[in-house]
Structures are given as C-alpha cells and as structure tokens.
C-alpha cells in the first residue's frame, strides 16, 4: 500500500523534502527553458503557441480577471467534491453493509461510468440552467466514482482472521465494522479522494465549457476563438494550481488521519 507514508517530523526532514522535489523541479525548469528557446528560435506566432514568458506576463496582466473566474470554478470544485465525498462514503458504506444493495445498485454505479460526462453536461444545462448548480452536479458525478469504488474495495479487504478475533472478544457485527473495517479501509478512501480531487477540476471545466456565465472553463472557451492563446494557457496554469492545491490538502488530511499507521516499508521488526 504505497499510500501509507509517515509524516515528516521536524526540520531535519526539510532537506529530505527538498531532495525529493528537486528532480521534478529540475525537469520542469528544463522543459520550460526548451519551450521558451524553441518558440524564440523558430519565431512561433504568439496566437499559435505563446512562450512561457508571455504566459507569465499574461497571468500578471490578467490576474484580477483570472482570480475572479478562478473563484467561480473553485467554488464549483469544492462544493462538488464535498457532495461526492459525503454521497460516496454513504453509498460505499450501504453497499458493504447490504448484500442486496451490492447486487442491485453497485452494477449501475459502475455502468454509469461508461456514459461520457461530456454528453451529460449539456443535458444538465438544459434541465437545470447555466448557473453553478449544473457544474456542481458535473463535478460531483465525476468525483463520486473513484471514491465509491476505492472505499468499497477497502471495506471488503478485511482480514478474515482479524474479524474472527474481534468476534471471539464479543464484538457485534457493527463493532467489527467500526473497529476493524473502517480503519482498515481508510487508506483506500484517501486514494479515492485524491483521484477525485484531480478529476473534480476537469469536471468543472467540462461543465463550464458547455455553457456557463463564468469560470476558467468559460474564460478559455471565449478566449480561444479570439486567438487569445496566452490567456487560455494562463487559465490552464491556474486550473492546474487549483487541482494540485486540492490534492495537497487531501494528502495533508490523509497524513494526519493515517499518522499512526505503519509505513509501507519496514513493517514488522524482528
């Protein structure tokens, strides 16, 4: 379970943290440098592919505009993600506790994922209207699935002998669930939540793309036909930052919630 990590303790881990991130940082800087020079050397048109420096300039120049639309998208993402988390945990719990629900509802949960979200988004627009609600629903629909599937897997993964041990100590079915299955499933839940955090941003953009009154997806949609390519890229940068931030928040909550869990490596020490 690679998701089990121990939190960094103390400042001596700061050096290790920098060491861990240095390769990614180096690759990113090299890629940006190559992009910058390629655009300059081959004299690529700004509306076709703007150089990173131009995109950075656009972010600075349109900061207020970008932030206004980022606030709209961010609101959709956070509300949709929270709705998906609550509904996903509730449904996964119900599916695990009831064989009937598992057999009747779970196949439809999986089948629903074969419907491309891009075909549902315009329908929601027609049914609900262009305001934030239709986007929140798209975000929730797309984030819901990884949460449910991961948590159901986690709740099913219970060690049979451990459950028997609890029963010999007099545990009821509910106590086995609360004291064993839930803690055992927590790492799986966080895996699902981290995937959901990233796809939530994609969901918001899809929702805005098919019709909205604002948001970064909408901003990209209106900027592209006007050949304001730098603004499209600036929006992408802000969207990425948003997705990474949400991911890091979930990862931080995970580190806190699983702080007492064993590390992936070094389990057992004889």
């Amino acid at each position, binding site marked *: 379970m690679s998701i089990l990590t121990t939190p960094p303790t103390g400042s001596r881990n700061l050096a290790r943290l920098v060491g861990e991130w240095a390769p990614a940082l180096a690759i990113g800087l090299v890629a940006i440098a190559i992009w910058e020079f390629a655009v300059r050397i081959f004299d690529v048109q700004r509306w076709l592919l703007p150089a990173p420096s131009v995109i950075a300039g656009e972010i600075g120049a349109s900061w207020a505009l970008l932030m206004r639309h980022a606030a709209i998208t961010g609101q959709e993402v956070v509300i949709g993600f929270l709705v998906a988390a609550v509904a996903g945990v509730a449904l996964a719990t119900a599916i695990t506790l009831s064989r009937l629900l598992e057999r009747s509802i779970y196949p439809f949960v999986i089948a629903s994922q074969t419907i491309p979200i891009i075909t549902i988004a315009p329908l929601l627009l027609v049914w609900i209207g262009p305001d934030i609600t239709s986007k929140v629903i798209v975000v929730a629909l797309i984030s819901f699935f990884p949460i449910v599937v991961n948590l159901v897997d986690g709740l099913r993964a219970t060690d049979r002998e451990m459950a028997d041990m609890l*029963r010999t100590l007099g545990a009821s079915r509910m106590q086995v669930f609360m004291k064993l299955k839930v803690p055992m499933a927590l790492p799986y839940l966080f895996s699902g939540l981290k995937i959901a955090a990233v796809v939530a941003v994609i969901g918001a953009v899809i929702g805005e793309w098919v019709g909205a009154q604002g948001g970064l997806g909408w901003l990209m949609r209106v900027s592209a036909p006007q050949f304001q390519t730098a603004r499209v890229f600036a929006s992408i940068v802000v969207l990425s930052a948003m997705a990474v931030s949400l991911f890091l928040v979930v990862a931080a909550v995970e580190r806190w919630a699983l702080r007492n869990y064993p590390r992936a490596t070094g389990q057992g020490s004889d």
Partner: protein
Amino acid sequence: MIGADNRIDGVTPSRLEVREMARSFPAERRGEAPGEVLRDISLSVRAGEFVAIVGPSGCGKSTLLNVIAGLQEPTSGYVALDGERNARRLGLVAYMHQRDLLLPWRTVLENARLGLELQGMPLNEANRRAGDLTARFGLGGVEQAYPWRLSGGMRQRVALLRATLPDQGVLLLDEPFGALDAITRADLQQWLADVLDREDKAVVLVTHDVEEALLLADRVLVMSSSPGRIIENITVDLPRPRSSEVVTDSRFVELKRRLLAALGLHRGAAL
C-alpha cells in the same frame, strides 16, 4: 475414559466440556461425500487445568478450537461451558492465534484493552486495567508504541494480554509461539507457564511441538487425522510450573517417548 475427570468430584461441572462432537463440511459438489473434519471428540477441562493437543498437520486441531470458541457450530454433539450446552460462546472464550492479529493503527495499550472496550467498559478504566498488567506481561514502557515497532515475541505478549484481559474462563492457544524463533519461543513458554500458574483458567493449547506440550500441560491429548479423532490421553505427572531443565528428567523423557509413539502410529504426511 477421556473427559471423565469432571465426574470425580461429581459436583462442579467442567469449565469446558466437549462431548461426542463431530464437525463436517457440506459437499462442495453434488454427489460428493461431505468432508468430515472431526469425529467423536470428547474432552473436558477443569478450571486451572492446562490441556495440550498435539497431532499431525491437517488433523482438525484448528477447527476444534474454532468450534470451542463459537466461530463454528458442531455438526453433532455439543460444547458446554460451565455445564451449559451449546450456549453462545463468542465473547466467553479467549482465543489466541499463531498470528498476533494486532490492529496496526492502535498502540500496545489500545490493542490490549480491545476486549474490555468491546464489552462497553469506559476507556479510561479499560486503559487502567490494561496498564496494570503491562509490567507483568513484559510490556512495561512500550504501552504507547505501535505494534509494527515491536518484535514478534513482544507482539505475542500483547496478543496474550488482549486475550486474557476480559477474564474469560477458557483460554484457547493455537500454536501461539509457532511463528517465533527457538530462543524467543523457549523464553515465552517459560513466561507463559509462570503467568498462567497464577490464573484459574481452563487452557487448551494446540501445538505440533511435543516438548512444548509436555513443558506446559497437565494432560496431553493426541489426535489423528482424516477425520480428526482423539487417540490418546496422557497425564503429565510432573509438578507445574516446570522449568526448561525438566526436559532431561527421566519421567519427562518417558512421557515424550509415549507421545511420539502415539503420534508415530498414526503419523500423517508431516508433523
């Protein structure tokens, strides 16, 4: 015969009594004979008595413990606790496995108190009760450690503390030291003998280690396989608790020879 001990005093029923118990599993496919695991098992254990069961692999020892613990029900016959037949046994019989089965997200103390917690005891009282015994169990100072930081021997001590804390009258031990190295095992056998000597429990130990059985038990039952039956009941008439030097005692050697003979006559593929 085997299991007649409880009628010697004629008044107090055995802590644990198994009578003409059989256990079989339904046939997996139509037309196949059902799998018979245990046949005509009778045994009784008084309070304070330590009974060991030895037998070849696959003789149904673990199934026998599972039935006694109440995780499975007998196909015929019965299990009685304090004279009460086929009562609900889950929660009344302590059961310690070869695997420590400690919950990795709980500290030593939180693992140890689990049984008390499940009974609904307030947590601070459960912590106090568990904390009072950690020193005796060789766990002083590691109460707040997580199991993955402990050695295998230490984890088994926590598992035994967890099993014994709810103060159930019967304690089942399923090869509790089987996964440990020889030195740790010898150390823990000695320690277990001392700890249990002060308790009033009826103990059933399943092991494949003949010396372990003779070191710890008042009586040793020998099982044969397919189906599992009890074929021998040997009383170990050596004073308890026994130190490890007892293995050189002539009486010990004689009993060991008898046990090995009983096992050898019905030896399975592997012991």
